[in-house]
């Protein structure tokens, strides 16, 4: 049996990789993907940490989180489409008409 902490460590690594991806990428879509990675890492953390106790509850919660991720992806992609239609660009650094 593999210790649950391995899974947790993996989830931490994935989470941080997701953060790094968020900063490294310059287009909205892949930044959105980066956030998805973070959410997935969190899911893994949920399951890993609850392995020894109420694992079933954790699964249900992960189920909810996947739903949330789907909803966020839908709305996020819609906004990206909107932006693209207006600016013909999805680079993050083009979104800076408001500042200060």
């Amino acid at each position, binding site marked *: 049996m593999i210790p649950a902490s391995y899974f947790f460590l993996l989830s931490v690594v994935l989470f941080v990789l997701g*953060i790094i991806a*968020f*900063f490294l990428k310059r287009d909205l879509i892949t930044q959105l993907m980066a956030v998805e990675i973070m959410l997935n890492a969190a899911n893994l953390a949920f399951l890993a940490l609850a392995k020894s106790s109420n694992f079933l509850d954790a699964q249900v919660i992960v189920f909810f989180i996947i739903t949330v991720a789907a909803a966020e992806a839908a709305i996020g992609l819609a906004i990206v489409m909107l932006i693209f239609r207006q600016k013909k660009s999805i680079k*993050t*650094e083009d*979104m*800076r*008409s*408001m*500042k*200060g």
Partner: protein
Amino acid sequence: MTEIFWLIPFVPAASALVLILFGRRLPKRYVSFQACGAVFVSFGLAAFSFFGLLNTSPEHGPLIKTLFSWIGVGAFKAGFSFQFDPLSAIMALVVTGVGFLIHIYSVGYMSQDKGYTRYFAHLNLFTFAMLVLVLASNMVLMFVGWEGVGLCSYLLIGFWFEKPSAAKAGMKAFIVNRIGDAGFILGILFLVMTVGSSEFSAIAAAVGNGLLSQGLATLIAILLFIGACGKSAQLPLHVWLPDAMEGPTPVSALIHAATMVTAGVYMVARLNVLYTFSGTVGPIIALVGALTAVFAATMALVQNDIKRVLAYSTISQLGYMFIGCGVGAYAAGIFHLYTHAFFKSLLFLAAGSVIHALSGEQDMRRMGGLKKYLPWTYPVFLVGAVAIAGVPFLSGFFSKDAILTRAFGQRQYVIWVLGLAGAVMTAFYMFRLIFLTFYGVERLDPEAKKHLHESPKVMTVPLAILAFFSITAGYVGLPAVLGKKADVFGRFLEPVIKPAAEGHLGLGTEWFLILISVVVALLGIFIAHTFYLKKPGIPHGLVARFPRIYKLIYNKYYVDEIYDGAVINPLITGSEWIYAHFDLKVVDGTVNNSASAVGFFGKILSYLQTGLVKDYALIFLLGIVIFIGVLLF
């Protein structure tokens, strides 16, 4: 019927509301009628309640009218309640009385201004706020008025917003007052925390039964005094008042001379129990007051703008009031506040009349010889000047003398000497002003001379009334040498301000002090006379016709020259130096710099707001890392 006093503030409030909302549609005559009428009604109510108060015995305690209970946090409660006792009665009478005259005067002064209605709306609003301040029965409600008068003052300083200097002055007044207000609100918070109430009666009770430790009392007293410094323009928070002269002159008279700036003095006197109890704060106040009195007087010596002279003079006189509070002569301080309200508003209004006559000229170097053109303004101005200079038998003499005598009696000799020095200078700069303005050579702008005219009746009549009170107002508070019962004013205030133990001064000493005061006042006038009136005229006229006599006089003047060189010139140069290097650079600079420093931080911080989501996320992440780091280590 005795409780009708709570209506006093609301009459001007209603008037202000009507003027703000419907003002544009109202005819000008009606606006003036309503604005002045409202204040007059208030005055009538105040007078009515005042006489009611005279007829009730002091044992009844103050009249308190709670309109409704306002704030309740746990055990702490503050009602929306007004209090009418001798102190607030005097303040209310001064505010409404002087305020009414100034309203009337404004009808003439502002008649050509396009912001006429706006002006009266603000003036009414100010009267309301000021009345709330003086009638409030607890600190929180007092703070309501306190902020209200500040707001109105700020708006009225910037009344002529076309002038950038006016807008800037408004800002400055605002910033400096905010510093004071911070102290004030913190003081209230501490009071609420320790006493559990902010009612004046409860504060007095807390001091009485030892609920308040002396250390805390001192802290609260100092915090509140910071607030008073801001509002009453004491060192080093005085910088806003001279600039506040950018507002219309009647506003300067009402807000920046007679009423609002005295709020700090009123507050200290109102909390006299607390201040007496704290012990150590008194001398601090006296010292600040004395330094301010002298410092501002030196500033007044070298100003050329007629209103700025009066502004510095106001600061200086406020210093005297604080000396009074600081040495425990709260009644004397209030007495000076009361007389000062008459003569200083008289001076301001008369100065306004001069400015009005000269089509807006404020520089005394372009005045002179106006005596014959302004047959009404000149005499009343003179009365005001004599009163403030401390010439016997006029109001200013009695009140200033009461304060200085008390300072001497408390063995605060340093304070006393500083006060005397201020008094000399007061007489000097006032008469310098008189001589430069009304006597001597005409240095008028030819254009202004064409339009030169005496002000209309609506302006001169209020001046005459104020002049009358400047002469007579002092007779309610005669010095103790004239008999124990002479000080009607002080005895009237006794329910609020417990008189300190009877003066230790013998009759002789007291007469001596009075004599010194008189000498000092006359000395100041004499110096100004020789300096600004006699000397310039002599060389030209006399030299040609009476060479020998001239020689004689010249010799006499030789003495004068020594005197000048040794005393007066250094004083003037010194004042100029202080004005240029300390007042303008250090104090003013500090205020400006702190404002720009705040702005600078804002600028730096707003650079972080780059508009890039990634940068936002970076700062977000940084926050998380620090947060978690602190949790872990």
